[in-house]
């Protein structure tokens, strides 16, 4: 499903975030990307969604070289991928419901079906009763779960999550990890950048060190 072929990423003015990186992720796999801060975890995930483009090598998603996609093709790639961002990127002037609705509006879902899907996604992450709330009224764990609901409402077959349990107490973190396991069980391919390997037993680890794969 995902193949990195000798990928490198250099940010201006000359910092190598990833160097000569090759690996493969097959369908329905759960992979955790670990490594120190600055190891290149976020960069790796961004390359998959073509938020950044590789400066060397090829990133293939579903057989498609996403680094070479035209700007106009990017939206359609991203709609197939669910993303939980490191900084969550919630819209604070919109309700919980509207935050989760956004990907569906973007994808052009009929409003009625969309509303049902939003409620299903909120239910899945345990926020069904908070749909009218604004994100600021939520706790850290609830905000994280909101970000997850928004990432999965489109029912993507690939889910990328960037440090989804950082800044959460251990109980809440375990709660969030459980949600990811559930998605794994229903056949979603998962790439999770995290320091907390122990929360994801059974996942294949990809260890990064200064932009290179170890092990």
């Amino acid at each position, binding site marked *: 499903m995902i193949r990195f072929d000798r990928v490198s990423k250099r940010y201006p003015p000359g910092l190598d975030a990833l160097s000569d990186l090759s690996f493969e992720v097959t369908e329905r796999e759960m992979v955790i990307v670990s490594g120190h801060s600055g190891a290149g975890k976020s960069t790796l995930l961004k390359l998959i969604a073509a938020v950044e483009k590789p400066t060397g090598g090829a990133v293939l998603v579903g057989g498609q070289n996403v680094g070479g996609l035209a700007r106009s093709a*990017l*939206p359609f790639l*991203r709609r197939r991928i669910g993303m939980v961002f490191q900084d969550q*990127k919630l*819209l604070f002037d919109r309700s919980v419901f509207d935050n989760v609705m956004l*990907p569906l509006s973007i994808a*052009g*879902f*009929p409003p009625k079906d969309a509303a049902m899907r939003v409620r299903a996604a909120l239910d899945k992450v345990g926020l069904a009763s908070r749909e009218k709330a604004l994100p600021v009224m939520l706790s850290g764990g609830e905000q994280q779960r909101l970000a997850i609901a928004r990432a999965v409402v489109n029912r993507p077959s690939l889910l990328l999550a960037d440090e989804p349990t950082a800044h959460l107490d251990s109980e809440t973190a375990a709660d969030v990890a459980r949600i990811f396991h559930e998605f794994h069980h229903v056949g979603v391919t998962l790439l999770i950048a995290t320091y907390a390997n122990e929360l994801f037993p059974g996942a294949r680890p990809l260890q990064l060190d200064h932009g290179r794969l170890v092990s």
Partner: protein
Amino acid sequence: MKVWLAHHQDAALLALRRLAAAPVNSLLSLLAIGVALSLPAGGQMLLANALHLAGTTSAVPQISIFMASTAERRAAAEIESRLGKYGGVKQVQFLPREETLARMKTNPGLRDVIEVLPGNPFPDAFVVTATDDRPEAMEKLAVEFRQWPKVEHVQLDSAWVRRLDALLRLGRTAVILLGVLLGAGLIAISFSLIRMQALMHRAEIEVSQLLGATDGFIRRPFLYYGVLLGLGGGIVAWVLVGAAALWLRAPLGDLIRLYDLTLVLEALDSRDSTMLLGFAAGLGWLGAMISLRQHLRQY
């Protein structure tokens, strides 16, 4: 199709909510745009009225011949027959002095004046139209008529029509120039207001792009915002011009009546109103479009 409509409805509502979210700002923006647009729109209103006035007034140049007030009716008959036979004269209308007096007396302002004058102050007169109404030919006829017996005064009536024509042409150019200038101004206002909006909603633009929104989807609420600004400004301009027309109607009508003409100042007609609102909305859209180009290149 339904989805498409729902999208547009959402975008329009979002734009409206954003306008309503900062009511003072929005109202001041609308006022600024409205005042700017009211200048060319007001110019067009005056021009349309002037054109109407010119249209209802004879534009065919005429020569008026006034007999000496001492001339007898026989002299006038003599001139009339000469005019009838004269080459280059197309039509002759005789205005007997009695009729002129009667007509003038119907004007309540003049009646009092006329009443105190001894006898009839008006001479017999002719109004002549020529087969060739170019200024040189008309001038030649006038020179000829001036030499005829008992003719006291010959007046070429074409001059003011030509002056009015030239003035209206100038007016039209001025209105177009104003329209272009202030239209560019409107684009600039819309540009900077949308820029502010885009900066305010930077997070939303970024998130939408990351979630797979096309440029069209992201642009839509901002374009509606621009269109609503333009349209709102256009309506303000329309109201301002309409109010000015009402306000000026009586005094301008009185002034024009002194020249023996009637004018009821009309607000913009439906064609001009549609043009005003259409242009305003279109320019608002254009300003938004230009402004957004820079904000959509980030991800």
